[in-house]
């Protein structure tokens, strides 16, 4: 198989999604280039999380195509998609609250069977997220929000994914942790993992993203390189529009 570097890693094309009668996505098209950080911006209820769920196979689109590394993801189950190399940091982190931090991180390696390499990766996570070292045997549910975010990111990395999708990774975090999380996303990305992230906080996201899309009630209203969008007045407008609609 030839995978040309120019072919995007992930592509959604003309996706239409419904919850019952209500349409959430209207001809949604998004691409994530290899090695890039792509950010999806949008106000409340604009359909951001649903986009993540489409990628992960948790919600099925009514029409449209989703491809990863050139192959369609439509019709695959979530575990099958995960095995293709997509890891996720869900909205509100969704840790396994009653399992220990160690177990949570190791759950990330569920699709792998190479015990020794998994143990090494666990050590690597502890260098990447040093704070977690003392918390390994603690109940994940007892951690602070910021610590939980670290666990969720470590958990996602444990599958050695080619791409991580993240839903509002900075939500509810103190400014200190927000910076830390953004820094980590950049680090992860520099190690070769593509990132697709959903954010409400445009200015933060545009700091680290390569490209960005703006979603407004299910339609992409704006997209382009992050650098260009950062100064675009329409970002503000789209935003206000988005949150008014919600």
């Amino acid at each position: 198989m030839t995978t040309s570097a120019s072919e995007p890693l992930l592509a959604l094309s003309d996706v239409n999604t419904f919850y019952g009668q209500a349409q959430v996505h209207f001809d949604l098209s998004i691409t994530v280039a290899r090695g890039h950080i792509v950010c999806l911006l949008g106000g409340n209820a604009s359909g951001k999380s649903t986009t993540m769920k489409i990628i992960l196979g948790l919600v099925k689109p009514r029409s449209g195509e989703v491809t990863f590394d050139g192959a369609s993801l439509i019709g695959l189950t979530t575990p099958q998609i995960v095995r293709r190399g997509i890891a996720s940091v869900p909205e509100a982190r969704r840790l396994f609250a009653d399992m220990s931090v160690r177990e949570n991180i190791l759950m990330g390696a569920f699709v792998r069977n190479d015990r020794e390499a998994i143990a090494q990766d666990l050590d690597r996570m502890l260098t990447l997220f040093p704070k977690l070292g003392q918390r390994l045997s603690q109940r994940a549910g007892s951690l602070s929000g910021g610590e939980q975010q670290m666990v969720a990111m470590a958990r996602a990395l444990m599958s050695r994914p080619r791409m991580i999708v993240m839903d509002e990774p900075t939500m509810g975090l103190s400014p200190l942790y927000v910076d830390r999380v953004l820094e980590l996303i950049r680090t992860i990305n520099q190690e070769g993992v593509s990132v697709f992230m959903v954010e409400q906080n445009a200015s933060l996201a545009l700091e680290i993203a390569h490209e960005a899309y703006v979603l407004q009630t299910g339609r992409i209203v704006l997209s382009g390189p992050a650098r260009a969008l950062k100064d675009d007045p329409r970002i503000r407008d789209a935003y206000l529009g988005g949150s008014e609609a919600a």
Partner: protein
Amino acid sequence: MSSWLDYTINGLIVGNVYALVAVGLALIFGVSRLINFAQGSIYLVGAYIGWVAVVQLHTPLPLTIIVVAVAAAIVGLIIERFGLRPLQNSVRIAPLLATIGISFVLDQLVMLTFSPNPRALPSQLPDVRFQVGGGTIGPLDLLIAGVGLTSALLLFVFLRYSKLGWAVRAASQDRDAAMQMGVDVNRVNQAVFGIAAALGGVSGMLVGMYYNQIDTAMSLQATLKGVVAEVVGGAGNVPGAVIGSLLLGLVESYGVAVFGTSYRNLFAFLLLVVVLVLRPNGLFASARQAPPEPLTGTFIAPSRPVRIPRWALAVASAGFAVLPLFPVSFYVLQTLINAWLLGMLALSLTLVAGTIGQVSLGHAALLAIGAYTSALLSLALNVPVGLAVIGGGLMSAALGTLLISPSFRLRGHYVSIATLAIGEIVSLVILNWESVTRGPIGISGIPPLSLFGYDLISPTSIYWFSFAVMVVLALLQGRLLDSHLGRSFRAIRDDDVAARAYGLSLNRYKSLAFIFGGFAAGISGGIAAHLYSYINHETFNTQQSILALTVVILGGLGNVVGAMLGAVALVGLPEVFRIAAEYRILIYGIVLLLLVRFRPQGLLGTM
């Protein structure tokens, strides 16, 4: 006379048996948020497989245990694969109803294969007892304790150290997140159903040996006890289920010691209701834990109801009204009278379960309250029968609503459990409150129906009377549904959070629905009492509650015409096809399963 230590030992042993059932329920609830009402049936199947192994194949005890565990596990896997997996994307109530249908089918298959007569299940262990302190303990007690502890240990090792065990734990804490880690939820479901069934089957076998008797009535009791223990421990909480079971065993055992055997179950269900009301997440759940239930509707299948023109309804009613004028047999009239009585119950249930979304599994209790009230009013106080029946309706409306009201704050499956328990409590109170209800003897010599001094004795007059009552109730209910009140009911069903946000008082509306529904069911029970002339605490049982639910689903939840059509179909069709009585429950179970799978909105659609 036994000592307190004996009661304690007995309580712990029985608790151990409950634990084997409850742990399985907890595993399944954890992963699928499903109360598996078929768990007791697997326990029943386990007991009978044990009987076949011991009595016919003469297997040694260790082999018997293995045979039962494996065979029961296979039954569990089949249930998961063919009964439940196809319903994954169905409405939330579908799997619950499917497990009820499966339990009917399994119980009936066992009954048809082995006959309903009890059988002895010898334990193959020496009959000696050792003195311990002031009590005694026998080899079977030790076996049960040993099986309980071994199972707990195996389960612990599985959950803690195996990959599949991790997947089970992860899926039970957050199913979607587990899938995002690559966990195949189908395999997890398979695993928990297999384990739950193996444990349940062994439990049934051990209980059979403990009492040296097995019969088909074990099934429902086991489900109920397992559910009680599981909910007390916190639905989905495996260690909680073990503690809940031991607690239940002790409470029952001490209760029996103080009050007598007939109170055993009463304590179990009272414990359940108290826990549900005070700590719906169980005794050990942390306070912040969200209740594991959906917050909004999607509990019944949304659909567009079939619109039946008024003239068609009028023609059908007229047809049924003039039917006795034609030379129809006594038998046909009798069958249709039963259909009308069931129709009244179905009207009641379709309002409560369909329109306002409280899926009641204890609806027969409303019949019982109406029947006893009417019977006692006419017998003890010489109230004219016509008035007594109305009194039965009113009492059922009032008392029924009062009894159900603790469950108003519950949602989804918890409502079903609570109503099931309340239904059992009513029947147990009737059994034990001898001074009023005459206890197990029942009430005989109930006077026949009469209206304004004229006795209704001929089948034709009874037919007209019950048909007219049903039609009046249906018209009233139709009016109700079209009113503002009806819309509020549906709003609560579809989204109780939003309904509350709009300022609807949930308790008030739920009460109103139960008052209306209780009245209709009470009238049905009252009429039945005077038709049967004899009733006891078992006349109106859980089987009838489930039958009513099947009728209501068949017609379409919330659908008034559907409720009556469902009653005629379910009572009438077995007669038309001359299906022998012992196969009927089996057929009902299969009908329920097929409906849930292929037409959850019923014949006429949900409203």
